[in-house]
């Protein structure tokens, strides 16, 4: 987010900041939901990959 703001890079973080400053709450909430889903999906992917790569975590 901060990187996007500094360089005015048109990403989700920049849009979120503009939405909040412009009192566009619906857009801000939607971006937060999308970002949260992305983080959760990335965590899930990480866990699954860990399961594949690390045989110690596998159960019978």
């Amino acid at each position, binding site marked *: *987010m*901060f990187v996007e*703001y*500094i360089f005015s890079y048109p990403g989700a*973080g920049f849009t*979120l*900041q503009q*939405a*909040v*400053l412009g*009192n566009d*709450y619906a857009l*801000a*909430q939607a*971006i*937060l939901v999308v*970002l*949260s889903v992305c*983080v*959760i999906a990335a*965590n899930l992917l990480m866990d699954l990959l860990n399961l594949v790569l690390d045989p110690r975590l596998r159960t019978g």
Partner: protein
Amino acid sequence: MSQLEPALDLSLAAPPRRVMRGRLRVPGWLLLLLRNGKSRTGLAMVGFMVLIALIAPLISIAHPNDFNLLAARQSPSWHHLFGTTDQGSDIFSQVVLGARRSLLLGAVAGALATAVAATLGITAAYTGGMVDDVVNFLINVFLTIPAIPLLVVVSGYLKSRSMGTMAVVLAVVLWAFEARILRGQALQLKSRDFVQAAKAAGESTRRVVFGELVPNMISRIAAAFVLVFYIALLTDAGLEFLGLGDMTKTSWGVTLYWAQTNSTVLQGEWWPFFFPGAALAFTVLGLVLLLAGIDEVSNPRLRTERPPRRRLVALLIGGRA
């Protein structure tokens, strides 16, 4: 070597309550922190910033938001030690007075978050069962949602952005990190013999928690406070940098925000960015060192033996170690 034989001869087991040093009375915990190199450096750095914040009105030369277009955009000089902004405000005054708001906000948010986290974490670990499940679920929810976008959205809804509300918002979002650490520590301590013994002896829950658990966790609680202190300091500066703070006040983040808004770096002015950023980095580095020091003092396994200086010099000049 030091891994196998923790140096327990240092007064870890029973820190002296108070030590007379000349005419000064030094509390035992402070002496322990001062004996460790890392925490000594960290304490000195943080203490320096706190001192600056306390004497700020005496050393700032002008009102931080006075504008004087004749003296705008000046590079650092003896007259304006840190230069001036686009409106001609003195950046030295802004940084020095901004330290007050930034540090106070970080400390208040850290203290609030610590209070919430310690209460919830210890209660959850000690009670167990349903309560533990609910608290753990809450912690997981807060840890999963990315903190900074959440903070941005929440502070967007705020009508007032006074220091109190900002501290509460930061604490509400940041308590989960701490609660997880403290819950784990309390769970581990709960099964230790002395707690079981106290329970078996029929001590009341209050006495077991405040007499046995909390005193043994106090270093963890202090470490967690320092951790949230610097995270809050950084996130608050970040929020203000994004324009989501109280723009009428003076703090490091606000100075950075105006530096960005007036695109100072594009015009070759580095000083409105550099000095507040350096103050922030200095404080955070001090807090990180303090945190590492607390960890080392409270956990003898992390302690490193200091190599004799003679050996270090020999190593540097390539002689035999």
